[in-house]
């Protein structure tokens, strides 16, 4: 009998503990939420006390492609500035633009210009575009394709469905299987800008689509006569990278714009970022990141670029 009352009592106890923990948890939410903002606001006043002269917290959200680089850079940055907490999150370029435009984060990572993601391009003017590196991309084919080199026009004819057999492009008699990227992906936007330009793809041409780069490589490697496009960092021995107009898909050719299929990686901030954010962006552009990390993650340093390109695609020499 005493055992029974014990178990009852212990049950009530458990219930009470649960309830109180929940209550505490909720208080905790409010508490830590406000603490985090107070840390932010006290960042500048605190800075003299901090050994690294800098404190605060920075959150970067957006492009999953850029995430590895920013994460690695953030880690190094935090070692040098122990007072700053940099949190890097994925979620996609659209999420990055959404959250930076709403002011809920300090940095929005994007694979494409914010102008192309927003309904009203003027909204992009409220953001500061920090181009931190360049991504080069190019066509890859199944290794059984005998063609090594295509002109931009030939590429265009493939991706608009005009040419459907490799023999028309100097290869063997084999059907071309086009694997496109999903609508909305930054890779597709870049490729279509560079290769198709203003040319419309006819409605009747509906190639396969695939979203993730890893899967695209796997599909091209396993499908005879397949062609698709990926960033240089996804090039491997299971597929064959094509030259375009005789130009090799190499870093130095991107830097001179001889290889035209490339895009900036952007880290958008507000037009007046706080000190910690500014310091982190500066760090992204410093040699610590540009020289080593950028190349390790398969990107091309922005510092090496000999040309610049604006949101409308106009290229000028530096």
């Amino acid at each position, binding site marked *: 009998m005493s055992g029974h009352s014990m*178990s009852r009592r212990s049950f009530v106890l458990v219930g009470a503990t649960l309830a109180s923990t*929940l209550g505490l948890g909720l208080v*905790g939410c409010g508490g830590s939420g406000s603490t985090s903002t107070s840390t932010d606001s006290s960042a500048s006043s605190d800075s003299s006390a901090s050994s690294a002269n800098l404190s605060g917290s920075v959150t970067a959200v957006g492009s999953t492609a850029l995430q590895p680089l920013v994460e690695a850079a953030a*880690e190094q940055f935090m070692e040098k500035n122990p007072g700053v907490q940099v949190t890097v999150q994925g*979620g996609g370029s659209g999420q990055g633009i959404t959250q930076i435009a709403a002011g*809920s984060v300090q940095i929005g990572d994007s694979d494409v210009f914010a102008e192309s993601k927003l309904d009203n391009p003027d909204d992009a003017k409220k953001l500061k575009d920090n181009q931190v590196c360049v991504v080069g991309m190019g066509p890859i084919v199944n290794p059984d394709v005998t063609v090594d080199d295509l002109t931009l026009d030939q590429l265009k004819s493939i991706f608009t469905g005009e040419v459907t057999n490799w023999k028309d492009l100097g290869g063997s008699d084999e059907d071309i299987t086009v694997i496109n990227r999903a609508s909305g992906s930054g890779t597709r936007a870049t490729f279509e800008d560079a290769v198709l330009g203003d040319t419309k793809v006819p409605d009747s041409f509906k190639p396969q689509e695939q979203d993730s780069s*890893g*899967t695209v490589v796997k599909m091209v490697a396993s499908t005879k006569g397949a062609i698709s496009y990926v960033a240089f960092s996804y090039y491997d021995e299971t597929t064959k990278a094509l030259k375009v107009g005789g130009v090799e898909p190499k870093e130095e050719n991107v830097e001179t714009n001889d290889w035209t299929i490339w895009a900036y990686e952007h880290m958008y901030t507000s037009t007046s970022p706080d000190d910690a954010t500014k310091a982190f962006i500066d760090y992204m552009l410093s040699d610590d990141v540009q020289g080593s990390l950028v190349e390790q993650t398969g990107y091309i340093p922005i510092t090496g670029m000999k040309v610049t390109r604006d949101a409308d695609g106009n290229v000028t020499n530096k």
Partner: protein
Amino acid sequence: MASEESRDGGISDVTKRLRAEDHVATGVLTAIVVAILVALVAVIGYILVSGAGKAFDLHFLTSKPESFKAGGGIGPELFNSFYLLVLTLLISLPISLGAAIFLTQYAPEGPVTNIAKTAIETLSSLPSIVVGLFGMLIFVLGAGWGFSIISGALALTMFNIPILVRVIQQALEAVPRDQRDAALALGLTRWEATVHVLVPAAMPAIVTGVILSAGRVFGEAAALIYTAGQSAPALDFTNLNLASPSCPWNIFRPAETLAVHIWKINSEGVVPDLAAVSAGTAAVLMICILLFNVLARIAGRAIERRLTAE
């Protein structure tokens, strides 16, 4: 039907045919069950075997994931999965218990109860991705909490409530009516009868059900990719500043779980040892789920023994 056949021999022919049919049918049914069991064992075996090398590697279990180099671990993900689970249970258990008690004990007949039942049923059949997107809209963007543990825990709560309510409801309903009636006859209010008699009596079934549902929460990914986020900042267990992203207990930091990690590296991962990492993560996840299952049964039985041993 046998009567239509000729008198002798015919009957036994038909009987024979029917018997044979019966045997064949039993054989086919047995084969189906065997096939399902084989498939189950094959799936679990495949996961465990292909990931065993990583899953029992202490370094893999404790170190942080790498974004582009080989040799990353799943330490933060492992912690995040458990922390999210605990938070989710802390929030969803009281609510589910209350809702289940309302439905079994109070539930006035009429529109209120019907609406409540329909709502819970609706919630249980909603795709988890839709629940996750709603969570993103309300908690991540609306409340401004960003991709965070609290957003994830609240989204998981929505996913978990219908499961828990059903489990607790069934457990309460399984308690013999006499117990409740006896309690009421002693002058206890319905609330007292529920708290002191019904819930303790239903405890074994409730505990088993809650732990089993914990397994579902533990492996859920679709509701989390846009709420708790797809990144796992390195954790520092000496950091007790609740506002710091590296403080493990901070509920406003983003937290990728094991399940989300598997999905993310398989769709956009660039680490060279991707296959090994995802197999290892899956094996760890599977081992945890198996443990939940074993634990659920042991705990249920233990409580039952304590209750009946009095």
